[in-house]
């Protein structure tokens, strides 16, 4: 379609400038974060607008390890991430496969149950779950955070998997079944290798949610500093309004916490956007 002159003028005088300005606004907080992370205790409280600090103190990124047990927090966070990914990519994929391809009694009913748990607001589960885990003596351990993930407690992932698996040609699995393949074999040899996009999307979402989770670690790990995740560690670095002299340190930890997510985004952008889009379209 040929673009009219009017449309082209509108684009160059209005659309591009607006998008450029918005882009600058969107990236500004990140630029400011990085810039602040390189300031010194003295320059961080200067009342000035200066995006390139003077002096640039790169050593902030090293000295922070002496002041905050970031390595420990990262390790603890990795427990969350790894269990979350296993639960998402393996356990949810098994359930998704059964809902998509295996006939069993009450499948449709159970699928409606699955969908309705998706609608349940998390807020009604916070207190009873705490009470249950408290009674089991598991508060102050990783278990309340890890068990739900390892059991694949995520209806949305199962739903995503099911929708994707239904699109894989039946002939593929039928042929394998003729050759005496079990359902587990079909899942492992036919379904999983053909489902990279959805596995990538679920994998990325799992990493993100585990990395960012705040409320559950706060409730279950609160007083136990040695079990803290990065999110809790970063929150604890926050001073009070007025005594904000450690702002540059807060920003150093923020950068450390943001970079892995930017890398995940850089490598998985395509799958992530497809996944987000799909969640909006609901198949």
């Amino acid at each position, binding site marked *: 379609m040929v673009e009219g002159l009017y449309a082209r003028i509108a684009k160059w005088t209005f659309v591009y400038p607006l998008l450029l300005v918005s882009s600058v606004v969107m990236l500004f907080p990140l630029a400011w974060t990085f810039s602040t992370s390189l300031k010194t205790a003295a320059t961080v409280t200067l009342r000035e607008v200066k995006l390139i600090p003077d002096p640039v103190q790169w050593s902030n990124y090293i000295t922070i390890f002496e002041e905050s047990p970031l390595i420990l927090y990262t390790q603890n966070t990795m427990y969350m991430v790894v269990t979350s990914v296993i639960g998402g990519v393996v356990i949810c994929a098994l359930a998704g496969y059964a809902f998509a391809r295996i006939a069993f009694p009450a499948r449709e009913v159970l699928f409606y149950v699955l969908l309705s748990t998706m609608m349940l607001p998390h807020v009604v589960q916070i207190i009873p779950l705490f009470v249950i885990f408290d009674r089991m003596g598991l508060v102050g351990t990783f278990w309340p955070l890890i068990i739900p993930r390892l059991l694949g407690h995520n209806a949305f992932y199962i739903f995503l998997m099911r929708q994707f698996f239904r699109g894989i040609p039946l002939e593929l699995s039928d042929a394998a079944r003729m050759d005496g393949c079990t359902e587990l074999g079909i899942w492992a040899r036919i379904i999983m290798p053909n489902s990279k996009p959805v596995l990538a999307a679920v994998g990325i979402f799992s990493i993100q949610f585990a990395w960012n989770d705040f409320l559950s670690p706060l409730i279950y790990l609160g007083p136990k500093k040695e079990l803290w995740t990065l999110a809790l560690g970063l929150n604890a670095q926050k001073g009070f309004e007025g005594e904000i002299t450690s702002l540059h340190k807060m920003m150093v930890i*923020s950068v450390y916490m*943001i970079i892995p997510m930017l890398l995940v985004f850089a490598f998985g952008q395509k799958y992530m956007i497809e996944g987000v*889009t799909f969640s909006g379209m609901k198949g």
Partner: protein
Amino acid sequence: MLTGMQRYLHRHRAKWVGFAFILPWILSALWFDLIPFVTNLYLSFTDYSVSTSTPDWLGFENYREILEIDPLFTKSLGNTVYYLVLGVPIRLVVAFAIAVLLNLRIHALGTFRTIFYIPSVVPLVAVSIIFFGMFNARYGIFNQLLILLDLPPVRWLTRPEWIKPAMIIMSTWGFGAQMVIFLAGLQGIPSELYEAAEMDGGSYWHQLFRITIPMVSPVIFFNLIIGIIGGFQVFASAYVLLGPGGGPLNAGLFYVLHIYNNAFSYFRLGYAAALSVVLFLIILFFTVIMVRTSDRWVYYGDT
């Protein structure tokens, strides 16, 4: 020799294989959805406090306290509604406007989309810490910029009237996920519709309101519902930005913060459970209203 059980399992194997695949999910749905939901209802009628004590049955006493006595219930609900009524539409409009601009067959679409999406991948705690720094009244960049423009500085996080606007500004930064969903919806509109409108000489604005918006109204509806349900449950960003008390005069005490404080600061778990049931009913009410009225303004065409 096969035992009866083994023979039974063998005969019905096909049936049970499916169950085996979903067994972890069934366990998790019982353990983390169904049992908590029922337990929560039960707890809301008790004065459950800590694990060592036996809870007493209170009947509707907790609910009576919420509706008749607790001043922070009204306060926190009001704060949350304020945040929702302004925050959700603002974010929706920004996300939609940017998506519409990106859908104008522009150059560097991918780059722009990435830039607008990046804030959505920044962890929420980091977002709150970053804005905590930027909102700082003395050294924060927002006030430095205001001073540069000869405008009076604002005490973003210490003046009750500025706390919720600060929260809304912060949450608007993360409109990227909604924008991506809108963009996909816009790209799905058949171009014949626009071609037909152009033949009839319809202006751009005419097309926007007569074709674009009706065609993506299901996506608007979805984003609106997700935004409202999420907005009612706002927690981490407010906790990190303002602390559990929600800042001066509880101006940023959102509903889930109020639940959190009752449960984990005052150990009134029964009362907190009742608060959460009330919020559940409020969310349910809004969702049902929206779904019921949706056929009046959401266009579900031949998709």
